[in-house]
């Protein structure tokens, strides 16, 4: 019954979102929609980390690696898009699997710093290894994907692809949170020592979440690469902050939080083009204000309003 209602709402929302390009055919609006859908995916990937009690700045590296992997698999190895797409996710998951057991040993702010360092090292590689990654000028002429004999060469096709990825990511996150795995990561976040004393291998589950999060971020990087058709390292530097901001703004306690966060925050700089030089400043002030007045984000605000109304009636 509950599942039925969720399925209905989810299908209805997706149907509305699928129809967006028909009502707003302008290319730049569709571009914003593609980026928003990609950041919904990235935000959900980050949400998995936050729900496990981990703040990571590795997402710049994760998305970048996904992008470069997918692009190079098609360009250098001649792999079809479907395989390159999966390879981009697997590549990042593999990096998380190898680095996770070392990184995740370190707690709190030191883990954040380590993941920041990881992002920097990865970026430096993309900048300095010119023969493979094209250095600062990046990669260009990345081929368009072909899926089921259909060439993806319009913005709206990429919007649908990114939307599908965001939808699947949302369902994956929601399924995880409602399963035994969700209970486990909640417990690791709340009282890790207690959970371990009862027989839970907290490290194993943290590495698992790091891998799933990386896999999803890698896939979004792949779609980004083939949509833009050119890549340069600096395009990814802001991603690590954006994905956290999306979660803080929307509210990290629910998978709907990062979805709302991305839908509101990603189009904002485009609409306020003239003020773009103040973007970082605005983000900083927004973060401080949110911490002060809305520590649980938009989702927390909605819950407060709903419970207040419920109490009054």
């Amino acid at each position, binding site marked *: 019954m509950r599942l039925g209602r969720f399925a209905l709402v989810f299908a209805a929302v997706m149907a509305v979102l699928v129809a967006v390009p028909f009502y707003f055919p302008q290319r730049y609006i569709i571009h914003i929609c593609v980026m928003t859908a990609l950041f919904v995916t990235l935000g959900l990937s980050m949400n998995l980390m936050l729900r496990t009690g981990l703040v990571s700045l590795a997402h710049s590296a994760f998305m970048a690696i996904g992008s470069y992997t997918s692009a190079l698999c098609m360009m250098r190895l001649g792999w079809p898009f479907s395989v390159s797409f999966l390879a981009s996710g697997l590549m990042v998951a593999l990096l998380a699997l190898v680095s996770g057991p070392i990184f995740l040993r370190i707690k709190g702010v030191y883990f954040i710093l380590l993941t920041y360092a990881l992002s920097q090292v990865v970026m430096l590689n993309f900048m300095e290894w010119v023969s493979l990654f094209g250095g600062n000028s990046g990669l260009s002429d990345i081929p368009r994907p072909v899926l089921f004999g259909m060439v993806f060469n319009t913005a709206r096709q990429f919007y649908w692809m990114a939307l599908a990825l965001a939808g699947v990511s949302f369902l994956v996150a929601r399924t995880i949170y409602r399963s035994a795995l969700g209970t486990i990561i909640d417990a690791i976040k*709340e009282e890790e020592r207690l959970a371990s004393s*009862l027989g*839970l291998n907290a490290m194993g589950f943290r590495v698992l979440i790091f891998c799933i999060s990386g896999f999803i971020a890698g896939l979004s990087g792949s779609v980004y690469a083939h949509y833009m058709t050119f890549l340069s390292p600096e395009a990814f530097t802001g991603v690590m902050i954006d994905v956290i901001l999306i979660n803080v703004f929307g509210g990290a306690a629910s998978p709907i939080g990062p979805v709302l966060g991305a839908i509101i925050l990603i189009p904002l700089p485009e609409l306020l083009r003239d003020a773009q030089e103040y973007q970082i400043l605005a983000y900083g002030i927004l973060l401080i204000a949110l911490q002060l007045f809305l520590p649980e984000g938009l989702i927390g605000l909605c819950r407060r309003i709903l419970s207040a109304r419920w109490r009054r009636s």
Partner: protein
Amino acid sequence: MTAVLSVTDISRQFGGLQALSDVAFTTVPGEIFGIIGPNGAGKTTLFNVITGAFPPSTGKVVFEGTPVAGLSMDKVARMGLVRTFQATSVFRSQSVFENLRRGAMFSLLGRPSFLLRAKATVTAGAVARKRAEEIIDFLDLGAVTTNRAGDLAYGLQKILGVGMALAAAPKMLLMDEPAAGLNPTETAALGKLLLRVRGEWKIDIVVVEHDMQMIMSICDRIMVLNYGRVICLDTPSQVRADPAVIEAYLGTDDELA
């Protein structure tokens, strides 16, 4: 019951400090084994070495024939040696029932590999609920099942902590000062509870404790530590009469003079 914890010649240094020297004991199946000692005697260090928080400098810890020193806490717990904490330790935001359910669930689904076993979650879910209900009956927590664990009185939180450890289906409980912070009535009740755990659940207990009265009344044997050495290992009545123990706790006449 065959659960046996055997500690052989454990020593542990921290820099120049000898925290433990040649500590050795072996539990007898079915017993409650107490470890006491004045402050700084090395009780907590011994406890941490046994539970794998850090390895001993020398010596061995063997549980049920398997060396456990240096293994991770969760792995030791899945082998059946479950520890409880000195401070209350519950999932404060969750209900009493959910806390107990988690205790059982984490011991059943402790490793990520459970995701590869199709029916693991379903089976574990049913087992965990059943165990939680059993423990609610055993601990008489029926009136507070849906209460938030963080809202319970301190004494009740400690009882819940014991319940969660039970839910993890241990062969032996390793308890770090379970009576710390409890009033005399609560301490006495806890002592009775531990006797029932041993009697009705057939779980052996090793308990490190400060409260003399409780430990004397429930333990079959007691080991007394002082300055990291075993100064006495005997039945409670023998321990009470031992001159070395009296000296360690009260000092000698010379010191008083």
